[in-house]
């Protein structure tokens, strides 16, 4: 009874997380601590005054509408990825890049246009779709790296391997902006793959704004997918 209760114990008591045998009996018998507790209660009760605007009845539907448009389609690309695993998939996209090159070369030859045109379109669409997913995946893994104590190092190395192939494909297909973004990502990934994650690295990922960059790049690619095909 003689030792007064600390502010920290009172805070825990307010949230029902104190060791009650230390706090409750003392409060019972000590007017000074009860006064302290009342003062704390007043502040914390007042904190309830911060309210959140209640979204309208259509909120869930609106969220879903926006979300649905940006969800990766469980389309051919995803299913292929599922079947192939990324290595074969990256190889397939590298081939797609070469098909694009073949398409542009074909334009200057005397071959009938229709067939290579369709092949070329399919190829660059596959590339865009694969690179879009790759940007999304990068964004998630970088966010995890920056925020979570357990870094997904295996995934970083996978990502790096995939990134090399995508960068090569994009370069071959003449997608220079994409290739450049992939190049920037690659430099960071190489660095990450060769050290244990630390605070300085986390801070730099955040400072560099690369997570946002990946998000924007992913969105741009998807936008193009929609417009061009």
């Amino acid at each position, binding site marked *: 009874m003689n030792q007064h209760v600390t502010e920290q114990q009172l805070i825990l008591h307010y949230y029902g997380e104190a060791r009650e045998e230390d706090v409750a009996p003392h409060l019972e018998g000590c007017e000074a601590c009860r006064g302290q507790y009342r003062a704390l209660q007043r*502040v914390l009760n007042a904190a309830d005054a911060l309210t959140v605007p209640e979204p309208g009845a259509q909120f869930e539907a609106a969220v879903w509408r926006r979300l649905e448009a940006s969800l990766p389609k469980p389309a051919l690309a995803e299913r292929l990825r599922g079947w192939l695993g990324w290595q074969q998939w990256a190889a397939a996209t590298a081939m797609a890049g070469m098909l694009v090159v073949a398409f542009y070369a074909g334009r200057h030859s005397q071959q009938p246009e229709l067939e290579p045109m369709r092949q070329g379109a399919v190829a660059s669409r596959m590339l865009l779709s694969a690179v879009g997913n790759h940007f999304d995946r990068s964004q998630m893994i970088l966010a995890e790296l920056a925020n979570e104590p357990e870094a997904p190092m295996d995934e970083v190395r996978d990502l790096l391997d995939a990134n090399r192939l995508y960068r090569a494909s994009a370069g071959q297909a003449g997608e220079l902006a994409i290739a450049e973004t992939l190049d920037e990502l690659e430099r960071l990934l190489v660095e990450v793959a060769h050290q244990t994650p630390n605070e300085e690295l986390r801070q730099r990922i955040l400072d560099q704004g690369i997570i946002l960059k990946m998000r924007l790049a992913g969105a741009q690619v998807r936008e193009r997918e929609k417009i061009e095909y």
Partner: protein
Amino acid sequence: MQETEAAAIARARTGDGEAFRLLVEKHSRSVFRLGFRLTGNQHDAEDVVQETFLRAYRMLDRYDGRASFHTWIYRIASNYSLDLLRGRKRMEQRKDEDQLPVVETVAADEPGVDRLVYSTQVRERLTAAMEDLSEQERAAFVLRHYEGLSIDQIGETLGLADSATKNSIFRAVQKLRRALEPVMGAAR
């Protein structure tokens, strides 16, 4: 209810959009509330909702069912909100620090004083004080005070040890007291 959710998760994993829609409908409102508490504004809160479910969808195959789906979603939302807050802090670092407005002490029960003035003052001070918390303090306090998560759960959500979670909450409460007690003092 638990069973249907587990079933929806299983179906959503296979790419079933309808199943994922059920999950979004069930949890989007609480994610919005959390996002609003953490970021302090509606625009960011809406961004938090979109991004949280987008990430959840892509990471669904990594959800192992150890935590409840609700906790898992909260974890994604909290981490993303912290990203937003950190980004915003950095952008604002160059700006001059906004001083807390100088508020005259007004007692609620003083005759002739509008109660509304009093509660507006408290809310303004509270908002400013929340802005002044570090991201970690804010997140820990919001999850404990408004969302009712236990210290254990908060640690799990934010990736903090129990002691770090507690200390963040203690510091947050102390800062709120410092901001609010001057205006509340006379209301005793």
